[in-house]
Each structure stands twice: as structure tokens, then as C-alpha cells.
């Protein structure tokens, strides 16, 4: 029945159209041409949008891919097994290097000339004797006996074993000469070369020798800096946010403070470094390269971030909560301390963690206050000379050795792991405690 009616209507329409004109303007060739062009423009616009998102994603993939690709090999390093005879007199004199070298010469007895032996010497890391020394110190009874030890190989040997130094290039252009490669082949054939997990990277401080260089010193430095930053910026930031959001009268002064905070958030980080250099080092005479100063500068830098995030969190608490508390006789301060602040805490924490993550990745202000020094020792206190993880990355990135490039990428991976951990925590907190009113 309905079908019939519709058909009827349709036939009436066609009839009406054929009466007025053969074609309406909506069916003209110009119109459909225009429509086609408009739809093509629509598709192009949409594609441009997709391309933009695609470029951003591609850059992220390339960036992370290139760093992982360069860095993953740094988590392993080459060790060489040697049969050493711990001669009593040499041990007492602390001459561990000759002990190791004798053992190495014994592996390739055919190399006897000075130049050849010097090449052999370069197979071992200059840190190898310290490994042996530590072994003897731990167990003095092994002096005078024959022992099997695994010692660190030189970074170039390490690069060769990882395949970054190719053996098919002519000897003159190769970092490792034929004598070294011959000795290594011999050692490898005897199973005396292995690739072990690179514990040095996670336990040592900086070093000029890539195979002995680690990021532990930088991690401790970063940690100390962050502790100072947190202890200062979190209480001050929350207090400032509470004042501005809950107590401050609306007048020119508070407007000034607000504008000020917004501007501070956009000041380039290197300017904060200049401030630290001129005020904390120059005026107050604080020590250079100290995590204390680094933390102070970072605290001033993250303060606006924390204030802004805390204000947003405080603003999200509905006024009814405040009115109820005031209604039962709480003082304004009690209202804030007992009700508003606890409810805003998850948001404040999230903002704080994100601010701390930013401070952890920040480099430029630390360069200004001298945390860019070559420091081998692990810092023990807030005024010890220290460096920080991003600064360590900056310094290693300058080193020409391939082995340092590898370690730079590894250090970046560690830094990114920390950042992901912190941001993950922030997301988790937000998800767990998020509250809609």
C-alpha cells in the first residue's frame, strides 16, 4: 500500500519536472562538476590531515627506532678469558697489568716483536687490572696460583666483535690491525671471548674509556637534583596555588602574580640557568656542579608548572564542598586543609609528577651551573660535584668513538624508561582517582 503511494508521488514529481524544465539547475553539468570538485577538495583536505598525523607518527617511530637501533648493543660488552699466574712479587707491587699481558702473550706466542706486543696490549681494557686487583683483594689466598679470569676487552675489540669494525676493509683503514684480529680469532676459537651483560654501564661513573664508562654517577646526580627540586617546588607550588585559588582577593596584585606565573612558565629554560649562575653561584657563592644548585634552579623552573596544575585541580573541586564545610562551622583554612586539598590531591600529584619528569629531562640550565664536568666519582651528597643523566648524554654525544655513540643511545633508553615510568604513574593516578562531580 505505502509502496503504491510512494510510486504515485514519484511519478507526479517526474511529471511536474518535465513540465517546468527539462533539467533543474541542480542537475546541470556545471553543478555536478562543481560538486565533484568540492568533494575532491574535501578528500584532499582529509588526506592532508591524515598525512600530518602520519608525519608526526613517522617521526616518532624513526626517532625511537634510530635510538634503539644504535643503543641496544651497548647492553652487552665483550670480555676476554685469560689464564693468569698471580706472581707474588708483582701482586705485592700492584703490577697487575703485566700479569694480564703475560697471559695474553702466552695465547699468541708467535707475536714477539715490540710493535706486535703493543698491539696485543691494546686488546685489553685499561680497567682490566682493577678487576684483577679487586679479585685478589676479595680472596688473597689466590696469590701465587694460576687463575682463570674474564676481563674487559678494549672498546675497539668490543666494536669489532659486535661487527661494527669490518674485517674486509684494508688494514690501513681499519681500527684493528691484523695482529689484533689474529689474536682475537685465536681467543674466540678457544671460547675465550664472550659477550656478557654490561654491568659496568649501570654501576660505574663516567670514564674516558668507553668500556669503563657508566651512567650510575649521572643517575645518582639526577636523583639528588630531583630530590631538592621536589622538596622545594612541591610545597611552595601547592601553597601558592592554594593561596591564589582559595584565599587571594581579586585585585591588581593577584593579577600581577598570575600574569607573572604564566610568563615564567614560558621563559626559556636556559634563562633559568643564567639566573642560577648569577644568583646562586655568583651572589651566594654556592659550589659549582652541585646537585643542590641544580635542584634550586630546577625548582624555580618547575614551580609555575606545579602552580598551574594545582590550580586547575583545585578549581575542579565543586563549590558545594566548600559551602558545606563552611556551613558546619569550619574556618576557611580548615575547609581547604580538610576537604578541598585532599579532594584535589590526585590532580595535584599528576601535575607534580609531570613537572618532575620535565625537570628530569632538562639539560640546558644544568650546563650553565657547571654540572657538565667530567666526574668519575659517584656523588654522595648535595654539595658534591655531580652531573645528571641528560647532561651525561650531551657529553657522550660529543665523543667521537663509536662505542660512546652506542652508550649515549643506551643512556637515552634508560632516561626514556624513567620518563615512561613517571608518566605512566601519572596516568595511573589520574585513572584511579579521577572523579567526576
Amino acid at each position: 500500500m505505502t509502496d503504491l503511494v510512494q510510486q504515485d508521488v514519484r511519478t507526479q514529481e517526474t511529471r511536474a519536472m518535465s513540465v517546468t524544465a527539462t533539467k533543474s539547475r541542480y542537475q546541470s553539468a556545471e553543478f555536478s562538476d562543481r560538486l565533484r570538485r568540492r568533494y575532491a577538495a574535501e578528500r584532499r583536505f582529509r588526506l592532508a590531515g591524515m598525512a600530518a598525523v602520519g608525519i608526526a607518527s613517522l617521526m616518532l617511530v624513526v626517532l625511537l627506532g634510530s635510538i634503539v637501533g644504535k643503543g641496544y648493543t651497548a647492553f652487552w660488552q665483550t670480555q676476554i678469558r685469560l689464564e693468569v699466574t698471580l706472581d707474588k712479587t708483582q701482586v705485592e707491587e700492584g703490577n697487575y697489568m703485566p700479569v694480564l699481558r703475560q697471559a695474553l702473550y702466552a695465547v699468541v706466542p708467535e707475536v714477539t716483536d715490540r710493535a706486535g706486543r703493543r698491539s696485543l696490549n691494546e686488546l685489553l681494557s685499561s680497567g682490566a687490572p682493577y678487576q684483577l686487583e679487586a679479585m685478589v683483594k676479595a680472596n688473597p689466598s689466590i696469590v701465587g696460583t694460576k687463575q682463570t679470569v674474564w676481563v674487559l676487552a678494549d672498546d675497539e675489540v668490543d666494536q669489532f666483535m659486535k661487527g661494527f669494525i669490518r674485517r674486509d676493509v684494508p688494514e690501513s683503514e681499519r681500527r684493528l690491525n691484523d695482529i689484533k684480529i689474529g689474536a682475537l680469532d685465536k681467543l674466540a676459537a678457544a671460547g675465550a671471548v664472550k659477550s656478557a651483560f654490561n654491568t659496568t654501564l649501570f654501576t660505574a661513573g663516567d670514564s674516558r674509556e668507553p668500556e669503563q664508562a657508566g651512567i650510575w654517577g649521572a643517575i645518582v646526580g639526577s636523583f639528588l637534583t630531583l630530590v631538592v627540586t621536589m622538596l622545594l617546588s612541591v610545597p611552595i607550588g601547592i601553597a601558592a596555588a592554594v593561596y591564589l585559588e582559595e584565599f587571594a582577593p581579586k585585585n591588581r596584585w593577584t593579577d600581577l602574580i598570575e600574569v607573572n606565573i604564566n610568563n615564567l612558565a614560558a621563559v626559556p629554560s636556559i634563562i633559568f640557568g643564567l639566573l642560577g649562575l648569577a644568583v646562586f653561584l655568583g651572589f651566594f657563592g654556592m659550589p659549582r656542579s652541585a646537585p643542590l644548585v641544580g635542584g634550586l634552579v630546577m625548582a624555580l623552573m618547575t614551580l609555575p608548572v606545579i602552580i598551574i596544575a594545582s590550580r586547575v585541580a583545585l578549581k575542579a573541586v565543586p563549590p558545594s564542598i566548600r559551602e558545606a564545610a563552611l556551613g558546619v562551622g569550619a574556618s576557611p583554612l580548615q575547609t581547604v586543609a580538610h576537604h578541598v586539598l585532599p579532594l584535589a590531591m590526585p590532580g595535584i600529584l599528576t601535575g607534580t609528577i609531570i613537572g618532575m619528569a620535565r625537570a628530569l629531562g632538562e639539560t640546558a640550565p644544568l650546563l650553565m651551573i657547571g654540572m657538565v664536568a667530567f666526574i668519575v666519582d659517584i656523588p654522595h651528597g648535595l654539595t658534591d660535584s655531580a652531573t645528571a643523566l641528560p647532561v651525561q648524554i650531551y657529553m657522550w654525544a660529543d665523543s667521537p668513538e663509536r662505542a660512546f655513540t652506542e652508550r649515549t643511545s643506551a643512556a637515552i633508553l634508560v632516561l626514556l624508561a624513567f620518563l615512561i615510568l613517571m608518566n605512566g604513574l601519572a596516568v595511573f593516578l589520574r585513572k584511579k582517582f579521577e572523579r567526576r562531580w
Partner: protein
Amino acid sequence: MQITVLLLVLVLLTVIGFQLGRSRAAASVGGRTVELHSVPSYHGFYVALWAGLPALLLFALWSASEGWMVMQMVLAGLPDRLTQVDAQALSLLRADILNLAHGVNTGREPDPAVAAAAEQYVRLRSLGDWSLLVIGSCLAMGGLLYARGRITPDLRARNRVERTVNVALVICSLVAILTTIGIVLSLLFEAMRFFAVVSPIDFLFGTHWSPQMAMRADQVGSSGSFGAIPLFAGTLLITAIAMAVAVPVGLMSAIFMSEYANPHLRTWLKPILEVLAGIPTVVYGFFAALTMAPFVRGLGQGLGLDVSSESALAAGIVMGVMIIPFVSSLSDDVINAVPQSLRDGSYGLGATKSETIRLVVLPAALPGIVAAVMLAVSRAIGETMIVTMAAGLTANLTANPLEAVTTVTTQIATLLVGDQEFDSPKTLSAFGLGLVLFLVTLTLNMVALRVVQKYREKYD
């Protein structure tokens, strides 16, 4: 050591003070706490504040002035031949004493008088720390006993505590102002010293930058030359390249994410941009120097172009990538703020989605987008690590993106890293550059805020 002990003592006394105050207040009314003016815990806070605050203030003042006072005492004890010298030698002497006192090896045999002074310095410092510990503890104890003695049922403990807390809150919110004042004063002060040597006109309009200072007075080119135009040009070039990457990509991603992407796609795309925003700049710098620069160079050589290994193009592109999420998230906000009714009206007239966006949404959001771009420019100008690692150090006055240029931030970083001297025009010039950088970024931020406020269309 003594300082740690003092802080521990203070924490302990504050906690004890709180407990004592609370129990005393309750005891003063025989446990009927309704008769008190304030709840007992306010009496606790009252005593705790009296125990902690004065000692803490003393501690702050003491540690700010102790080093200086001890140094004056030590200097007063030195023979005149060492102390009756010009300011520069005196500051050197101070540094020597400090180095010796902290056991830093200066590499030269110290003057016996200076060595004795250093010993005296260490002795006085330790004496000072001990007396601070004793005086601080006594002060805290005294404050505690005084406040405890004042507890009566009528004591307006709540009002007093709240007033103190209020003052503390105001002080905390003033830290931001103090920081700004500190920045302005330190930059101005050091820049003034620089401009006393190099005229501001030469600095702002000179076209030759080579800040080397002479070791000897008769050396060729001993004065150095501080014409900052090449640095400004380099900064502008790299910023322009960065903007050419970041603005189209960032804006189009924002449009795609807010207008086209379905919620499912959005949940995947948003984190990608957030990760891009969270990557530290030093990582971008490493990427620019070791991956992007060789790639750009290789590409240029493939096309027969001569590309510098530290080309402005590589640094600019990577900086652009860094700024994409910044532009995108700011534009996303302003695009979402355009009311739906405008879009609906446009659709009702038969416009396609892209026409609606181009002709209705973007014009409505334009002030916000302009502000976002200005903030992004200010970010790019102030960015340090990417250019320090990937752009060059040679001050070229060129508009060719394939050549190496240097920027303001790169120069600040390289002029001040590893330099202990604080009075040569070379290091001071960094503060001159810093002042320019601060003023430019500040102006950009202020103008961006003004643009948003002034030109925002109000639809509701």
C-alpha cells in the same frame, strides 16, 4: 653534619611541641575540650610553630651569612700585603682560601699565610656550625617552653596559627615574583657590565661575532668582536625552518584529530603526540646531530648540493618535530572551543566538512591559533639543546639553510660552559644575549596573551 643534626632536632622538637601543646590544652580544661576557644590540635600547632619557626629563621639567616662573615674574619687576620690589593686579586685570594679549605687541589704550592688562613677558615666554619646547632636547639627549646606556658582555655590558638599559615601562603606565592625579579636583575646587572665594555649599538647592529678574548694585550684582534646580528639571523633561520615544519603539521593534526578522527582513532593518536612532547630536548639534539644531519647531507649530495654537516636545515627540521605537539595541543584547544552551533549552521547551508573548517571554524579560532604560533616561535627561539648539539658554532650571516649557522642559545651555552672567570666580556656577553632572549620571548608571550584576550570572538 651539624646541620643535619640541627634539622633533626628541630623536627623532633616540633613533633614533641605539637603533642605537648595538645595534651596541655586538653588538661587545662580537665578534658572538656568544648570549653576551649580552639580545638586542642590548634594548640599543638601553636606550640609546634613556636618551637620550629624562630629556629628555622635563625638557621636560614645564619647559613646565608656564615660563609661571608667567616671569610671577613679570616681576611682580617691576613697580612696587609695579601689583602691590600685590587678587587680582582682579592676575589682570587678568596677563591684560593675556599679551594684549600675544601681540599681542592689547585695544582700550585699555596702561600703559607693563605694555607694558615684556609685552616682558620675550616676551624671557624666548624665552630660556627657547632654554635648554630647549640643556639638553634636552645631557641627551639625556649620557643617551645614559652608557647606551652601561654596555653590557657581562652588562648585564640586557631586565629594565631591561621594567621601564620596565611602569611606563609602569601610568601610562597611571592616566590614566583621574586624569581622574575631575580631573572631581570641578574640579567640586567651582568649585561650592564658587558655594555660598559662593548657599546649596545655595536652589540645589536654589528655583523661580526667572534667572542675570543686575548691572552695577551698585544695579540691581533685582542678586543674580540661582539656584533650579534649573525646570531639573530641564525636563530631566525632555524626558527623559520622549525615553524615551516611545525605549523602545517601541528595545525593539520589538530584539525584531523578534533574534526575527522573517530574517538577510537583519537585514543591512539593522542598518546603519540604526547610521547613526542615528553621526549627530552637532549634526545632530539642527539637525533638531529647523529641521524638527521647525515641524512640531510646525504640527500643534498645526492642532489648535487653542498650541504654542511651541521646544516641549519637538519636542526630546524628536528626542532619543528619537537614543536609539533605544542602547536597541535594548543590549536586543538582553540578549535574545540569554537561552538558547535557555528558548524551546524555551516552544514545547514550545505557546506562540506572541509569548507566548514576552512571558512568557519578556522577564522573563528584564528586569534587562538595566532597566539599558539607565537608561543611556538618563542619556544623555538629559546630552545637550546637541539641547536647546541646539531647547529654549528661559526657565526655565518646567511639565509641558506644548507649552511651552518649559530644561534643565540648556542652561544650562551658555549660561552659559559667550563668557564670559571666571570668578568671577561666573553662570558658577560652571554648575559647580554640572555637579556635579548628574555625580552624577545617575554614580548612574544605577552603579545600572544593580548591577542587571545583582544580578538577572541565571544559567542555565548
